[in-house]
């Protein structure tokens, strides 16, 4: 049996030497030679015999223990290591499974408490209640430790070298999320093991309080109430720890996920562009505002009056014809064909004045159309023409001055234009 005072005294005396060693032991075991080198670096003036004596003392006090199956390598005693980590405010993230195991144990203790009460064993009841209380404190301690460890994880991720890939930088965050936070979310969920366990223990304690009032006290009510309060504190702490973990790690996890998505998106886009050109990625043509092109040049005064007119613009009311009303204008007449006009002209022979005849035939005809027919008919081979004096004619829209023709049938033409067809 090692005297605790001697261990504590040794830790206090050699703290300056032990503290740097803790960091080395965090990363693995050390051989005797390495240990001597470490100590020699810190105590350069010390003779080798002193270093040997120092190591010997630590080994005798169980501060250093040999590694199983490697007697030449040493590590810090796990208990001492934990104690030093606590003193150095170092927190290693535990496992969610540990908390779950504690809760199962709490439930078993609640069962033992009920049994002890049923057989009216006051001593056992008090002992089980104490055990329950200590176990709840263990959970609280563990939750507090885990929260500190989570803060450290987030800080390490945020402060690590920005130049290393995000995946490496946030590897610890992602692993912590998957191995601790996600199972904790399941555990602390309304139907999870944590809530169920707490509820069961709480019910046992409340039943005990009621039964004690009815059947008489086996233990002090204060003990029951204190334990109950601590159970509720544990429940609240678990929820707060989880919330804190989410607040700390979720943004980092999202950043890592976003990083992966951006890299993957860029690679996808480049692959598509390589195969099918820039237009293969429609998302690339994102809307960028461009200054609208001016379509007119004007002086400042013109622009001003234009804007003024725009500001006072009132659209003219649009009048649509009534569906029931009749259309005023007649349906447009199909254009005359050359054959039709020639036939009509032939039938009207002899014509004293071609232009006048055309005006009589087409009083509403457009001037250009009338002139076309005048030209076409006067030059036709089947008519013999005779120029008239220049005079003025009035179309619907114009006043014309021209020398018209009198038309008679050409000498070699038959009397009836349709006769050859019918006679043929």
């Amino acid at each position: 049996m090692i005297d605790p005072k001697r261990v504590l005294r040794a830790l206090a005396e050699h703290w300056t030497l032990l503290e740097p060693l803790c960091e080395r032991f965090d990363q693995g075991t050390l051989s005797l030679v390495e240990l001597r080198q470490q100590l020699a670096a810190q105590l350069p003036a010390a003779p080798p015999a002193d270093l040997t004596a120092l190591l010997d003392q630590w080994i005798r006090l169980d501060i250093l223990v040999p590694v199983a199956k490697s007697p030449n390598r040493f590590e810090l005693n796990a208990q001492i290591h934990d104690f030093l980590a606590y003193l150095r405010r170092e927190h290693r993230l535990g496992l969610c499974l540990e908390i779950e195991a504690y809760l199962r144990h709490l439930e078993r203790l609640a069962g033992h408490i009920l049994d002890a009460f049923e057989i009216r064993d006051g001593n056992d009841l008090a002992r089980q209640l104490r055990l329950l209380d200590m176990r709840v404190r263990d959970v609280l301690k563990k939750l507090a430790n885990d929260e500190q460890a989570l803060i450290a994880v987030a800080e390490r991720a945020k402060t690590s070298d920005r130049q290393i890939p995000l995946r490496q930088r946030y590897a610890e965050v992602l692993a912590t999320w998957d191995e601790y936070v996600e199972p904790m979310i399941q555990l602390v969920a309304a139907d999870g093991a944590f809530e169920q366990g707490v509820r069961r223990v709480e019910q046992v304690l409340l039943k005990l309080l009621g039964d004690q009032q009815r059947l008489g006290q086996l233990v002090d009510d204060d003990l029951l109430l204190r334990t109950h309060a601590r159970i509720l504190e544990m429940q609240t702490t678990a929820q707060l720890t989880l919330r804190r973990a989410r607040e700390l790690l979720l943004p980092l996890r999202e950043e890592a996920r976003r990083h992966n998505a951006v890299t993957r998106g860029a690679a996808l886009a480049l692959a598509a562009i390589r195969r099918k050109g820039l237009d293969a990625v429609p998302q690339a043509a994102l809307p960028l505002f461009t200054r609208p092109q001016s379509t007119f040049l004007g002086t400042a005064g013109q622009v001003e009056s234009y804007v003024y007119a725009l500001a006072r613009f009132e659209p003219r009311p649009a009048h649509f014809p009534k569906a029931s009303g009749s259309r005023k204008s007649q349906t447009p007449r199909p254009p005359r064909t050359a054959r039709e006009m020639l036939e009509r002209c032939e039938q009207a022979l002899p014509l004293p004045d071609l232009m006048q005849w055309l005006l009589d035939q087409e009083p509403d005809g457009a001037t250009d159309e009338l002139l076309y027919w005048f030209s076409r008919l006067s030059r036709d081979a089947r008519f013999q023409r005779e120029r008239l004096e220049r005079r003025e004619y009035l179309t619907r829209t114009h006043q014309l001055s021209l020398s018209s023709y009198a038309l008679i049938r050409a000498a070699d033409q038959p009397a009836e234009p349709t006769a050859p067809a019918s006679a043929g």
Partner: protein
Amino acid sequence: MNIDLKELSQLAPIFRELFKGYHISQRDTELYAQLTNSQDQYRTLFAALGFELVCDRRGFYYFVPEQMGAQVNKTAQRLALFTFILVEHLADQGRDPLAVLDGGSLGRDELPPLLDKYRDLFLQAEVTSQEELEEKVMRRLTQLGFASEDNGAYRFLPPMHRFLDVCLAVQQDRDLAATLHSDLPLPSPELVAEEDDEEIVSLSPAEPEEDEEAALARAIAEERALQEQDA
């Protein structure tokens, strides 16, 4: 909403910049501060004038065109391509693309190797030389407020998130991924052959259809026949 123009003391420079297509971010201290303080007023005022002001919560402001024209914005495509290339290039080098594009910087001396490595892709954006890369991409990035240049390095500003969002949108585009992952063309469905070829509705014209030239030739022939007949 009542808008007090006296409060909007930076209205003219803000409008001038936004109208150029510039993205205002924290780097433009005064403009950004006033836009942030009077965000609703500016948005309402610009909306009344027919301009849509986008206030991105990541810290920048810009106008979006009312409607995308039929013509694809070449500049946007070019800048997006540059972003894709830079993200991949940095990831290949083991660097963090987001750390560079979200507030980080890129040395001017890094551009030539980038151009060499991705020459085929830059070619698609009509960028063939270092000068063109600086002129058509880097200068446009700085002109539009996506980056700033000082001491031979380009520093990327918050509006670059617009292009990073494009990367995310592409990543979520299942169709695009599907077309890339399947080299074979999609199988075309085989229709079951009908037993009889009788059509439900006959679409063939009663007479054989003639094309425009044939119709013209026919009309000329008719006219000539008529003239011959007349003669």
